[in-house]
Every structure is written in structure tokens, then in C-alpha cells.
């Protein structure tokens, strides 16, 4: 297992390096950050000074070599826009995004699995049909529209929940979290639900499909015949076996939740990384874009690794050391 993990980490390093190259070249092809940065009234001399100050007067490969050299010392460059270390700016916003993504993941599991299993066990019932129809809506409605509707209904019309922003935060081990205060929770609920909606539908479908397949398996029939209670059959024998696809997909989707919470964060003015990346792309803040994507690649690689390890825990037939590149 250790060999497996070490090999995967080495692969991860290669992937991050390849990614940094592609992104660096890519962002250097698009747009002109100086034009985004300078005041309209700036004259030619001032524009040239800014180009020099940001190191953009050198060819892109020289810029890239500088970047790689500094990256090995843990310095991913200074943000054009903020003038601070881009890594620091991203890390500063990380807790907010992770909190949102975890809350959404939790909602997907808590709401999705029971509903999915239920509609798998009783596919013909009216409730199941409602659940399945609802999951189609969850799939097909665009996130930004649903987010705005949530705000309109729950914040503007009913006034139950706050419309935007992050509420009171409490530091835990130096990281600010908002789920420990009432105000924080009330701010967290709508964006998390908005982000979770698609995942809930996904989990419902996966759980339902798994359940439909597994209830007909011999071991379920045998467990029934043995006289085990329905609860035990469903919660132990069935649940364990539908979890593998659910864990795989949720693992991958968690990376997606973090990387692509852009829309939800923008609609709810949630101060996370997603909002940062979209602002950075619009302002052509190249160092932040590169650093952000490198971090996201790292997150994906780590999640995949965790999923693989989880497999072996859930299904003893899977042996990690057998996996060879």
C-alpha cells in the first residue's frame, strides 16, 4: 500500500508540472493584463513601467523558467491584482470553499441516499415517482437560476434566511468556520443547498439503480430467507453493496464541487476560491489562475487516491498493491 501511495504521489507531481506548463502557456496567449490593470488616463511611459514591473517585457519561456525556479521554493508568484503572494490569497479563501463543498456533499448523502434507496425498493409507488421527477429537475435546472430563485423566495419574499455573504465565523485551529454559529449556518444553508442540488439528484439515481440491481441478488434473498429483519437487510447487506459506485462518483464530484463552485459563490457572494478564480480570469490575474489550477489538480489527485483507498476498505476483493501502472 505504501508503494502504491508513493507511486501515485510521484505521478501527481508530474501531472501538476504538466498542468502548470499548459496553463502558463495558455494564459499567456489570452488578453493583455496591463490593459486590464492601468488607469485609462495612463500614458505610454506609465504603461511601459507597469509592463516592466510585472515582468511581462520578457518572452514567455523566460517568464516560465522564472516561475518554475521560484515554484520550487514554494513561491508561485505575486498576484498582479492584489500585489500579494498568490498562494496566500488562495489559501486564505480555501476554508470558505471547503466548508461550502463539504456541506453540499453532506446534504447530497443525507438527502440523496435515503430517497434513492426508498425509490429503489418501491419503484412503483407514487412517492418514488415524485422523487424521480424531482431528481430530473435537480439535473436540468441551471444553478445560477435556482440560486437566484432561492434568494428571491427565502430571502426577499419570506425573509427567513439571509440573501448573500458569509455569516459570523469562529476560528478553529486558526481556520475560520461558520457552521458553528447560528448566523453562520443560516448563511451557509442556501448556497450549500444550491450547490448540492445536482449532486442530490445524482446520488438518488445511483442509489436507486444500485438498489434495484442488488435486491434481486442471491445474498439478499438468502438474508431474507434467514429471517433477518428488513432493516438489517437494507441497512447492512444492501447499503454496503450500493456504496461503491456512490463513493466513487461522490469522490470525483467533490473535486468538482470545490473547483466549480464558481456559479454558486458568485450568486451568493460567498467569499471562496470559486469567486476568486472567476474574478482572476476576468482581470487576467495570471499568477492566481496558474496557482489555483495547480492546487485544484492536486486536490483531484488526492481525492482519487482517497477513493482508491476507500475501495479497498469497502470491498475486500480490491487489492491496492495489485494496481500497477
Amino acid at each position, binding site marked *: 500500500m505504501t508503494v502504491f501511495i508513493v507511486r501515485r504521489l510521484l505521478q501527481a507531481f508530474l501531472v501538476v508540472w504538466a498542468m502548470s506548463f499548459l496553463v502558463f502557456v495558455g494564459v499567456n496567449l*489570452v*488578453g*493583455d*493584463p496591463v*490593459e*486590464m*490593470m*492601468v*488607469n*485609462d*488616463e*495612463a*500614458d*505610454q*511611459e*506609465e*504603461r511601459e*513601467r*507597469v509592463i516592466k*514591473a510585472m515582468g511581462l517585457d520578457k518572452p514567455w519561456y523566460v517568464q516560465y523558467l522564472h516561475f518554475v525556479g521560484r515554484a520550487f521554493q514554494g513561491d508561485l508568484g505575486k498576484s*498582479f*491584482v*492584489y*500585489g*500579494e503572494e498568490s498562494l496566500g*490569497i488562495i489559501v*486564505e*479563501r480555501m476554508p*470558505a470553499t471547503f466548508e461550502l463543498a463539504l456541506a453540499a456533499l453532506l446534504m447530497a448523502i443525507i438527502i440523496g441516499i435515503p430517497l434513492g434507496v426508498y425509490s429503489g425498493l418501491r419503484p412503483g409507488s407514487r412517492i418514488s415517482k415524485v422523487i424521480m421527477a424531482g431528481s430530473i429537475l435537480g439535473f436540468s435546472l441551471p444553478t445560477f437560476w435556482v440560486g*437566484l430563485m432561492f*434568494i*428571491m423566495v427565502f*430571502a*426577499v419574499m419570506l*425573509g427567513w434566511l*439571509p*440573501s*448573500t*455573504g*458569509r455569516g459570523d465565523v469562529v476560528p478553529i485551529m486558526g481556520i475560520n468556520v461558520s457552521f458553528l454559529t447560528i448566523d453562520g449556518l443560516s448563511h451557509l444553508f442556501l448556497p450549500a443547498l444550491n450547490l448540492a442540488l445536482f449532486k442530490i439528484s445524482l446520488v438518488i439515481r445511483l442509489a436507486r439503480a444500485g438498489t434495484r440491481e442488488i435486491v434481486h441478488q442471491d445474498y439478499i434473498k438468502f438474508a431474507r430467507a434467514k429471517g433477518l429483519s428488513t432493516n438489517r437487510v437494507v441497512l447492512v447487506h444492501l447499503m454496503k453493496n450500493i456504496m461503491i459506485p456512490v463513493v466513487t462518483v461522490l469522490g470525483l464530484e467533490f473535486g468538482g464541487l470545490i473547483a466549480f463552485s464558481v456559479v454558486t459563490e*458568485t*450568486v*451568493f*457572494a460567498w*467569499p*471562496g476560491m470559486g*469567486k*476568486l478564480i472567476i*474574478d482572476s*480570469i*476576468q*482581470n*487576467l490575474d495570471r499568477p492566481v489562475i496558474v496557482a489555483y489550477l495547480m492546487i485544484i489538480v492536486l486536490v483531484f489527485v488526492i481525492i482519487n487516491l482517497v477513493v482508491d483507498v476507500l475501495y479497498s476498505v469497502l470491498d475486500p476483493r480490491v487489492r491496492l498493491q495489485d494496481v500497477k501502472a
Partner: protein
Amino acid sequence: MYMRKTLAYAAAVAAISLAPVVQAQTLTIGLGTEPTSIDPHFHNLGPNNQIAQHFFSRLIEQDHKQNLLPGLATSWKPLNELTWEFKLRKGVKFHDGSDFDADDVIFSMHRAGNHPNARSSFGLYTKAASTIKKIDSHTLHFISKKPYPLMAVDLSNVHIVSANEKDKWEGDYNNGSSAFGTGPYKVGKWVKGEVLEMVRYDGYHGDKPHWEKIIIKPIKSAPSRLAALLAGDVDFIDQVPTVDIARLKTNDKVQLSQGVSNRVIYLHMDQFRDNPEFVKTHDGKPVTKNPFKDVRVRKAVNMAINRTAIVERVMEGVAIPAGQLLPEGFFGRSANLPVPKYDPAGAKKLLAEAGYPNGFQVTLHGPNDRYINDAKIVEAIAQMLTRIGIKTTPDTMPKSVFFKHGKNRGPAKPPKWNFLLVGWGSGTGEPSSPLRSLLGTYSKPKGWGSSNRGLHSDPEMDKVLDEALATVDDNKRAALLAKATEIGVGRNQGIITLHYQVNTWAGKKGLTYKARTDERTTGFLVTPSK
């Protein structure tokens, strides 16, 4: 038992009814933009400057119409062609308790002009004053090499910081913890992307602002910002989307504040190249002659544009048709440039006279995320021009891509586009800024024409503008600026002005705000109406 419950209830009621009184001293603002730093010399851009003016004062302030007001300087006057005398306010203290005097001004001028990391420096406002002479602790002489009438206007853009914080550029200056000014508010908590708190500074030298605390929340998405106001999470917002204005006017919980800005939206036409890439003959072949070089064609384009329709349909009535560089009420405006009349028949005739009876083909490029409804304006204009025979293809793109190819690096490297829509906000509040940058002949040593994207050039206008920029007498300068505008925009049709943007702010009923022409949101000028 019953008694205790009642008491608790009464206390709760009291707490609830007291809450608004405490809250009333706090103003929460939802802004569409966010500052990148508290350092007032780091980035010379609207979102930063509008925040900086809460924490820092300037020698000269600008009121909501960009008229100059005494700030840290109580009076200023030109002593001769080259020397301006500034008398400083006495008894002013910085937020850190130190006294304000001439040394702070000298330090700030130096810092603003030489910030090593500045993304767009304030050097363009400080460089004219080549020498600053300290006469006594509260009198300064600003001396320029050439007569420089814009000295006072330029200085109204430079924020004054304490000279005690020397050699600090980043970190604590960026996040505000060692940024000490003399403004009406002190920096409170700042969590980037989330909240910026401002706390009233009781030692402020000007009028005491009403709000004890101002809380800024950046909410970039326009519908969300509006929803936050309607839900009561914020008290005041800027950049209200034009589509919602009509509905908000009928909402009696909301008060709107609207006003014209110093930003004009206009078209550049390539008046330089002979074989423009995006201009084709009427049957789609490459041209050998650039039609835009003919003033009659430019005039025809101008006459073919129905500004009233654009303002009413595209801008939902929230804009003012433009015939020159600045709206009414600004210094140096021409009285002889009315809004051009919509006359498609006359335009067609002019086109035929210029040798284009069948018109020609052209692509109009524009950004789609920079100005209010920019992409829709481009489409509307393309239709209007197609109607007179200039078959126009609209092409809009994100500003980051648009400005890369729309950048003017002089005759050697002109912009890629031949026909483009842009906007210009005049930070100085008078026409020399757009005249110099948009119409002045490209010249690096003079710093002219950096945004002259059509490479228009007319030595006669340059001469008048040169003269204006060397005339310290206000009345004479105003007349010269008006004359330069009449030549560049009127006679030459160097650019085609479309409309002035109108900005809209919205607040809870009972809050008033004087709409600012510089488009800034100033929290302490939002006041409860009496």
C-alpha cells in the same frame, strides 16, 4: 413563574425594539466592485479610489460634480505661470495621532509617484510638480517646468498619508493596518471578498459623518446585489442594472439616486491604414482605399445613428445622448456641438457623394462586459449602419480579449480592430483628458494618444490643445478646450460620441445620495433624509 416569563418577554421585546436604534448608526453597502488594497497609492483605479477616500484626505477634494473643494489645503492659487501656492489646514491629526504638516504632503507626493509595485501609478498626477518647496510647516510651493493649469485638478487625485510610515509598501499597508490617513473613517476589519469595515474617526477635520460604522460587502453579481437590498441585508447598493430600474421606481421601500457620469461611450474609426483588415467593399472584396479616411463617410456614420432609440430601447432610458466629450455642466464644454440629428437619408446621400453609393462592409468590435449594455449597443449600431448601406457585422468579446487587440501602440503597431466601441471617463472632470488621449496625435514623449485607437491626427487641433494645456487662466483655457473639441469631434468627426452613461444607486427609503459624476460610491455621503 408567570412574572418571570413576562419579564423575559418584555426584555426580549425591548431588545428587539432597541436593536434598530443601534443599527441605525451603521450603514451596510453592497458594492459591485472590491478594492484590491487599502494602500491609496497602489492602484489608480475606481474601485480602489472610492474606498481610499474614506480613509485618506486629499489636498483638494472633488464634490459630486467634480468641482474642487478645499481639503487638506484651505486655499491654493497660482503665484506665477509656474508656481502654485498651497496653504495647508492646521490642527489636522492622522489616525495614529501624529500631526499633519507640509512634510506629509511632500512624502505622499513622492510615495504616490514612485510606488515600486504600483499597478497603475499616481505618477501621472504628481509628475508635473517637478519641485515642491516647503515655505513653512503649512505652506507649500508646487513648481512645474512648464505652465501647468491642471495642477489643482491633478492634486485632487492624490491621497495624503502619514510620513511616519516610511518604506512600507506591502503587507500591512495593503491590508490597512499601518495605513494611516486623515479621512473621516479608520480601517476596521477587512476580509477580502467578504467584508470591509470602516469605523468613524472622531478627529476628522471636516463635517462629522452620520454613520458610526460603514460596512462594505462586495456582491459582484448584479441580481444578487439587488436581492440583498430587497431582503434588507444591505442598506445601499451601487450599479443597479438598467432592466430593474423601472420596476424599482414603483417600489416604495426603495429610493433611487441617478445621475449622469463623466463617461462617454463612443466609436473609433481607423483613419490611418490604407488597407484595413475588417473593412471590405460592398461585395466582400478587400478594399484598396480606407473609407473612414474620408470625413464625409465618418459624418454619414454619425448621422445614421439614432441616439434616441439607443437611449430609450437599449439603455432603458438611463443614458443621455452625446454630441461631445462631456455632459452639460462640465468645464471646457463647447456650446456649439448639439447632439447630431438622426438623418438616414442625408447619410446615404453623403455616402454616395464620398463615392460609396452601394456602401461597404465593416466589422464593429466591442467589449461585452465593460460598459453598461455594451454588447447590445454594438448590435443596435450595426443594424442602423446596415440600413444606410454600410453592412456592419457586430463582434463582441470579453474586455480582456477586446482590449488586447484594441490597444494602440502607435503607427508602428496600431490596434487590430478598425471600427470599435469604447468608453472614456474623464478623471479630471474636463475635456483635456479625452482630447489628449483619444484625439491627440500619437506621441510617446508628450504622452498623447495612448488610447487614440483610430489614430486620428490633426495638427491644427494638436496646436489648440497644446495652447490650452499651457494656459493657466481658467476662462481662456475653457474657450481653447471648447475650440479643440469643436475641431476634433465636430469638424473632423475624429470619434463619434454616442451617449453619456447614467449611473444608478439604490437605497432603503429614507437614504439619500447625490449621484456622483465620477461614478464613485462614497459611504459617508449617504445620508438619512430629514
